[in-house]
């Protein structure tokens, strides 16, 4: 039995710093539409959930999916169609889209998880391209190249036409998704995923059905990507082929790598960076957008191997060591040789290079 949502017994003495960071993050999420243009804020929120969902596979299961646009896009179209044809409140439409994405992920994942590494990436890409061509061809349903236009935003008769208001209507869905991801990676199930990532042979030897775990991680990741994709479609009022294009998969992978593989919150940072960069560059009067985003990507990969989150954490750890090294009464000598449980526990979360 796979224990998905059971609480993993945390070692005692968790630092309050973690809660402080969480509160700061939450506050930032709430303040975002004040700081930047609200539709862009909504984009950041949607992409953050998408990137974090992808990170569940890439960072915690060690599977590089290059076809997650299939789930994001399928859900975008499904949520749009549900909203257009049924007039149901938008969270229901988004949930419907996410469920369809999860359903789609079962057969695709079933076939994919038997591969790993580059083969897994290629097979997922192939399936995503299949979805792309279906969306392109099935014009009566998806609008083909013109896209599925005019998706309404319905919620109990509220007026959500203002993107500022819609942000607060959509944010709970994103937060719920992120909370779900956080619970998944901190559950016993999440720990087994990390074990599988680090050493699949040993995990199998211990008796874990490795493929089944991978498949479940794949489906969960697809469902949460779908949640993000549906919300994205509703927020823009349309779904287009861009949503199922391979560049969308690539963009999500880029966000995860920029933010830091294997750190859920890092992915949200990566998402914010990429979306802001795209938004800024579109009016910057510079016609080499690809050059700039590419350069940023190369720099981050070269200088911050563990992404922005990893770099920040290393900085924090260095500061912490410096603090501990300062001459202090007896406690210092006690703490110095053996790392505290928290640090050790944290160390387990840093992805190993062989990921």
């Amino acid at each position, binding site marked *: 039995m796979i224990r998905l949502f059971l609480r993993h017994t945390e070692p005692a003495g968790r630092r309050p710093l973690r809660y402080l960071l969480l509160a700061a993050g939450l506050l930032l999420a709430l303040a975002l539409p004040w700081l930047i243009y609200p539709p*862009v804020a909504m984009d950041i929120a949607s992409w953050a959930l998408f990137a974090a969902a992808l990170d569940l596979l890439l960072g915690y299961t060690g599977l590089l999916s290059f076809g997650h646009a299939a789930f994001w896009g399928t859900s975008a179209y499904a949520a749009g169609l549900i909203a257009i044809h049924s007039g149901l409140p938008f969270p229901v439409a988004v949930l419907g889209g996410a469920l369809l994405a999860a359903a789609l992920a079962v057969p695709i994942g079933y076939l994919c998880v038997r591969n790993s590494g580059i083969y897994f990436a290629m097979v997922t890409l192939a399936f995503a391209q299949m979805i792309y061509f279906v969306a392109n061809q099935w014009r009566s349903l998806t609008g083909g190249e013109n896209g599925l236009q005019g998706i309404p935003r319905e919620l109990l008769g509220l007026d959500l036409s203002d993107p500022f208001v819609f942000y607060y209507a959509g944010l709970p869905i994103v937060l719920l998704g992120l909370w779900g991801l956080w619970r998944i990676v901190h559950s016993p199930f999440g720990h087994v995923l990390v074990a599988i990532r680090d050493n699949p042979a040993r995990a199998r030897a211990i008796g874990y059905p490795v493929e089944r775990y991978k498949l479940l991680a794949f489906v969960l990741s697809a469902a949460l990507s779908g949640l993000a994709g549906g919300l994205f479609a509703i927020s*823009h009022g349309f779904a287009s082929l861009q949503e199922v294009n391979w560049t969308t998969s690539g963009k999500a992978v880029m966000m995860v790598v920029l933010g830091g593989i294997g750190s859920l919150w890092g992915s949200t940072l990566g998402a914010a960076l990429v979306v802001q960069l795209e938004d800024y560059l579109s009016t910057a009067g510079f016609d*080499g957008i690809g050059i700039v985003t590419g350069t940023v990507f190369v720099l981050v990969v070269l200088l911050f191997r563990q992404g922005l989150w990893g770099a920040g954490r290393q900085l924090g750890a260095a500061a912490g060591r410096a603090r501990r090294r300062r001459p202090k009464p007896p406690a210092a000598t006690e703490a110095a040789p053996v790392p505290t449980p928290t640090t050790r526990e944290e160390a387990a979360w840093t992805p190993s290079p062989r990921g």
Partner: protein
Amino acid sequence: MRTTIRAVTAVLATGGLLVAGCGRGGPGGGGDEKVSGGKIVLAVLNDQSGVYADLSGRNSVEAVRMAVADFQAKYGDRAVTKNIEVVTADHQNKPDIANSKAQELYDRQQADVILDVPTSSAALAVANVAKAKKKLYFNIGAATTELTGKQCNKYTFHYAYDTYMLANGTGSAVTKEGGKNWYIVYPDYAFGQDMQKSFTAAITAAGGKVLAKDPTPFPNDNFSTFLLKAPAMNPRPDVLGTMQAGGDLVNLVKQYNEFKLRDKGIKLSVGLMFITDIHSLGPDAFAGTTFTDAWYWNFDDRNRQWADRFTAKTRTRPSFAHAANYSAAMQYLEAVQRAGTDAADAVVGRLEGYSYDDVFARNATVRAEDHRVVHDVYLAEVKPKSEVKTDWDYERILRTIPAAEAFRPVGTGGCAL
């Protein structure tokens, strides 16, 4: 040292605040009540870094600036306002970015009108934004007839061309000139399917016959299957009609030449081609190809004069999209001038049913029924290199298709305004 840095920072910050303050209290604050915010803002939203950057892109912004300068020169002190701005954004051919940017342009940059917007999904998304914000939108870069069909709205105008006009012009003209039997090859997505349908209708109406039509994958590099099939057909087609665009078109034309189909009596007709396509592959590759052009810079003196001014600024010859951006900006400003205000509903009222004639749009009318701007278009043939006299002199205009015949008849598109 540290104090110095602090002092410098403080001075810079104060300076920055002062400059910002001045900017706000400056020109715009005077309060010109005729136009919103004391100024007219024209926004160009298009692809400035991708596949459409050459045929429209940044040079269209330059064309719009030319229109503003010409408008100011024409009206001088009589102009409704002297304060006219041009802003721009790159939508990177992504509909989601186009959507966010359009909202931002209307809301934050106080744009009164958005121009261009290639890529049909982006074009339709921006049409929905224009409708919601009740601001004007002239689409130039996109081909979809949906803009003046089921998804038309009060604030959206389709300016330069569309799939119907391209197909109808070439299909009926070439058929009437003797190309009775057609073989159509089209990319299997919305644009190609629309073009194929319109072509077939136009050819049949003109007394021709479509022997076969084959969808091709998109994108596609290898068209040999279709090009080998053409000469083997019985009866042999007179014309190969291709609806491919961009890179696919270049591949198909290269292979058409390799298979020497022209020597076998099969002419080539292209659905959508920009002068930038001919320029990139060279005129010899396309020589003899017929297509419908919305405007050609070397058509007459009026066009040449405008093109020379454009070239002086951009160092390249204008495509029809550049000229159309100029024209649309000019006609928008003229409508504001006639209305005496930039209030969107008043300007729309002044545009609907308006007839005019400018460097791009000859014998033009803004149709009130569906906001299709109809104007003369041209059946063009690509010259062989030996006949090309100057740079970019690639086309021979075979005939002018009058505005009344060129576009989809009113009432057939399903637009309910």
